[in-house]
């Protein structure tokens, strides 16, 4: 698959993985791995990017007497996901046209 396309989709996958509940690095990898192969080192730049684009908020909590960083989707992130669904509808129409 085209790298740029895949990169965009991976960003959306990560956003979708925290759509309903806040999550942390390890759990995000585990959740997404059920659908596609994602490595821990691939996730890091994605999280960093989402954070920089202000699509997610982060906070630290203590777990087992150590700090764990949680990622929380914010209004912009949810808006982005919603937008992507509209985009997919458009892509789907294009796909059907190409495929016919």
């Amino acid at each position, binding site marked *: 698959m085209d790298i740029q396309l895949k990169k965009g989709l991976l960003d959306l996958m990560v956003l979708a993985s925290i759509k309903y509940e806040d999550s*942390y*690095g*390890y*759990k995000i*990898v585990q959740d997404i791995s059920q659908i596609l192969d994602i*490595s*821990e*080192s*691939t996730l*890091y*730049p994605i999280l*960093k*990017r989402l954070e*920089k684009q202000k699509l997610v908020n982060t906070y630290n909590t203590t777990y*087992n007497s*150590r*700090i*764990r*960083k949680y990622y929380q989707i914010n209004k912009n992130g949810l808006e982005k996901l919603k937008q992507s669904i509209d985009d997919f509808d458009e892509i789907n129409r294009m796909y059907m046209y190409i495929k016919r």
Partner: protein
Amino acid sequence: MNRKTFLNELRKELKFYKKINTEEIIYYYDEMIQDAVDEGQDESLFIKNLGSIDSIIANIIKDEDFIKDVKTSNKNSLTNIIGGTVKVISWIGYYFSLFVLTIVYASIFLSGLGLIFQAGVYFIVDEVTTMDQWVLIGMILMGIGIAMIGYALLANIYKTNNSIRLFIIRKTKQIYRKKGERNNE
């Protein structure tokens, strides 16, 4: 490799990339490993599956946003020039070492073949005694061994060329940093 060793090595390597937020990455992997262990995964196996430290760094570097960040944050034109020089020298160093290694490995491979060929020629052209025959067979076997070593090295060089590139870039930066420190003194 255990968690502490892995994080130490990662920190040591990340030190060479000024623009990377080392501590943030260390926290990320530290948390990741501890979470994996808490979930019942084997620590050293998990770390092994994370891939080599070079590939981890390559993943961070190849991220476009990171590169864009570096470009925009390099407001100091002097840094830009030195950065450019380091890059050019690194690339020259990279291709040069790749070239030298290829030649060295290719010559090992060819000398192995040469040995086989020479022994073969003796066999055919000369009237050899039984004793000589054993020597020639030994030569052929040695030739096969040497040729195989050369071939393996050659095949390996392209598999590891990413690590070679990172290594050269790191070393060039190191030399430049030392030079800069000396100039500052």
